[in-house]
């Protein structure tokens, strides 16, 4: 969805940078580096890093923007458990179409690939 929405928006995104959590401030997603840092902190366990990322994102945008980003992160805490808990998989043709994305994101060898 990231690759699709970025292409539709006329932006070419570096998926390997997203997968690695590197600084992606040089791509054309506004506040992309702050969002990536915030999303990373939401999924990891360093409370200070999360406090800092939350503060910096809200300062650069506004608290409603930060809350919306927090909600998206929370949604994928839900959806990843739903997908992995229920053995959800994509049809073969979809997998084939997404081969380059799968490679770029470095997820081909995950246990959760079914």
């Amino acid at each position, binding site marked *: *969805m*990231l690759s*699709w*929405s*970025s292409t*539709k*928006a006329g*932006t070419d*995104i570096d998926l390997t940078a*997203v997968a690695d959590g590197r600084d992606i401030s040089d791509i054309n*997603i*506004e*506040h*992309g580096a702050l*969002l*990536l840092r*915030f*999303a*990373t902190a*939401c*999924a990891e366990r360093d409370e200070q890093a*999360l406090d800092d990322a*939350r503060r910096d994102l809200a300062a650069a945008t*506004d*608290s*409603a*923007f*930060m*809350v*919306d980003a*927090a*909600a*998206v*992160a*929370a*949604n*994928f*805490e*839900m*959806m*990843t*458990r*739903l*997908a*992995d*808990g*229920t*053995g*959800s998989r*994509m*049809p073969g043709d979809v997998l084939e179409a997404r081969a380059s994305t*799968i490679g770029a*994101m*470095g*997820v081909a060898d*995950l*246990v*959760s*690939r*079914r």
Partner: protein
Amino acid sequence: MTNDEDRSSSLIVRDDLAEAHRLAWRHIARPGVWFTAAQRIELANTVLMAIADDEPLPPWVGLSTTDRLSPTAEAPAAAHDIAYRIARHAGTITADVYQAASAEIGELPYVEVCAIASTVAAVAHFCRNIGVDIPPFPEAVAGEPTHEQPDHIVRAELNWVPVAAPADQTAAVVQAYSAVPPEFDNTWRMAAAQYIPNEEMVHADWSRRAGGLSRPQTELVAARVAQLRECFY
């Protein structure tokens, strides 16, 4: 005023999101299709424990084999074991793990436990993400599990779990909870408020409000969290 109150006092959570989470907590505390409200709250607390656990059990160790699960627990031990694993190690769940757990508690009860875990994970992580405390669950509502289910439940190609017929006409994640309708309804109400309303999914330029997250910004957050959770889907 505590730091928590200080932070939360300047935060405004939009009404639809606050309402979806309020309803999610109320949903947890009501009798389910396969578990009582007391059992559901018990399982939800296991999920909270798993998420917050500073010394998590390895994926292959069942919670019920430790002293962390109360001997007076009302829900089956196997339900607590799989709730903990879905909450903390979802990316390690294989078909064998699913089959072993569902053989103990039943396939549709397994779906309900999975839904409790995914619901509680969303609310708990949202609270942490914005820096506020997780609200307590409401009082358990009395009553027996409803045992209500769709007329036709079938096997799917795209999921381990059985689904409401017809199978495989929608994405696997969409049909995953369809055999336990209250969990399906709660999950997709939450997704609409947290992420994108279903009818807007095909619109790459959708945004919740002017100046809000753009679709690529939304998907950037989504992709990063899913990747860190090692979720291939």
